[in-house]
């Protein structure tokens, strides 16, 4: 019995892998890729929301939004540290992101064009993220699973806040606000469906990842759960899901729905979406403009003799 076989059997029986354990290279690499993509998504995901921090139309909404974006920075930080337990370096991961070598959730390459988008991102985008993340609380790699538990708790909170913001505006607001919300749902529906990845028939890596317990449910399964949940919630808010074919099928117990435009998905994933350039430009600019700051911090810590390798923030 090879080490690999022992490992596979351990994982198959629900065993938790820890950083100190031996693990197959492919497992490590797959995890680093998945965890860092997840971390990048948190970081890039801050940007469409940050766009509305200054003009949030009430003090309470401003507070909620600052706290939410802060949580996302926290999730990013937490997830990068999970990747670090696997031997990755945060700087390398960030460089790969900026150079366009790393991926992140396609949904953040769509722009947030109105205030309603803040609510919609909470409701639909965080809603989709949670479905995926909840399953990952059971994932085989211990540090990742524990991160997911904490992150899910906060994400659920964000989703409820998004739902509540839309509900309130739609129920008590003006016609102009209702139009703004419907327009927002129209734009974010398809990108949200795409968040679960391509149809199972086109999804690579899935089989091995599921075997390793890095992935728990298939893309299509999760997507269907999402549609079922959102279709019901949309009626509570009062908005229309922009899919004329959407209807309840009592036989399957699911909502039937139209697939999003997968060609567009591959364009966005390939770096040619509406905001890909903008997002990376933003992160590159933040890194370059502040290089002198991080440099000074590093030199200072070195002078103080308490400099550990790596990021000055860790010192």
């Amino acid at each position, binding site marked *: 019995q090879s080490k690999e076989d022992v490992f596979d059997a351990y994982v198959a029986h629900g065993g938790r892998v820890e950083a100190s354990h031996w693990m197959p290279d492919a497992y490590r690499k797959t995890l680093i890729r998945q965890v860092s993509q997840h971390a990048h998504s948190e970081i890039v995901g801050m940007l469409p929301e*940050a766009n509305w921090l200054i003009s949030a139309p009430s003090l309470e909404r401003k507070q909620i939004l600052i*706290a939410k974006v802060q949580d996302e920075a926290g999730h990013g930080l937490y997830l990068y540290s999970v990747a670090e337990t696997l031997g990755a370096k945060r700087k390398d991961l960030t460089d790969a992101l900026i150079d366009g070598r790393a991926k992140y959730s396609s949904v953040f390459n769509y722009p947030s064009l109105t205030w309603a988008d803040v609510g919609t991102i909470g409701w639909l985008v965080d809603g989709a993220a949670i479905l995926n993340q909840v399953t990952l609380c059971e994932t085989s790699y211990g540090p990742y699973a524990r991160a997911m538990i904490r992150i899910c708790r906060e994400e659920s909170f964000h989703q409820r806040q998004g739902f509540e913001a839309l509900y309130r505006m739609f129920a008590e607001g003006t016609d102009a606000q209702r139009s703004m919300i419907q327009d927002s749902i129209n734009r974010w529906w398809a990108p949200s469906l795409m968040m679960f990845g391509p149809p199972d028939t086109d999804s690579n890596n899935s089989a091995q990842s599921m075997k390793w317990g890095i992935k728990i449910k298939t893309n299509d399964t999760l997507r269907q759960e999402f549609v079922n949940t959102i279709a019901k919630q949309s009626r509570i808010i009062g908005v229309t899901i922009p899919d004329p074919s959407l209807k309840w099928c009592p036989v399957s117990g699911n909502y039937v729905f139209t697939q999003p435009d997968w060609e567009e998905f591959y364009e966005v994933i390939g770096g040619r979406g509406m905001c890909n350039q903008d997002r990376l430009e933003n992160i590159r600019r*933040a890194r370059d403009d502040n290089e002198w700051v991080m440099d000074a911090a590093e030199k200072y810590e070195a002078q103080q003799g308490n400099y550990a390798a790596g990021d000055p923030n860790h010192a």
Partner: protein
Amino acid sequence: MLEDKKNQLPKSAAFTLTLADSCFIQTQRLCQWCGQAPSLEEEMAISNIALDTLSYARYLYQETINRVELPETPDTLVFKRDARQYRNFRFIELPQYSFADLVLRNLIFSSFLQNMFQRNKIADEKFYSFSEKAIVEIQYHVDHAHNWIRRLSVGTAIAKQRIQSALDIVWPHTRELSLFSEEFDVTDHLQSQTRCSWHHRATDLLREVGLALPSLPDRYRCGYDGYHTEHLGRLISETQSVYREFPGGIW
């Protein structure tokens, strides 16, 4: 509406309104760093400070309203006054072009604000529990600024030069803070504890790390008297853009 001149407000309300507006504008300037900070750790630190200053703004707006008994809310004060009616300190509204600007504004504003709350804690019963909590929180803001000013001043020559340039710009504006303390009679309450006044602590630090303090102007037109720069108007118009676009909106 509070659109009248500051001196038509009762003094106690003018005092809280200036602090409230300053906390609010500081929040806005900090929010502009979101996604632009030097590291994820700083993203979190800056939004922490922003959440605190926002909560002080909300409290102080409400205090202002209580003192003048007007049918306003913190939201209407923020979203319905135009820039000419804001009463914040002028240095708070200046754009933060670099991280050096951020830490210096933070040093000055946080340590000054901490002193104001210390004074209030003593002078005003209603403020006691709010002030006590805020004073502790602000210590974190002050420490954050101290740590960074030290790193930047000592770390590299280029960082030292940048923080000195930033200091040259912001320091003369601290004249407004002493004028404010005089006008609102805050100095007395702090005299017994002069050594821990914001000014002493800030100058001690800045000198210790080798920065040169620019001289202060004799005369100064104060933001709390409504003298602002062109930067405030742009910030306020962005602040109010969604609110104004949806009259009667529910948020």
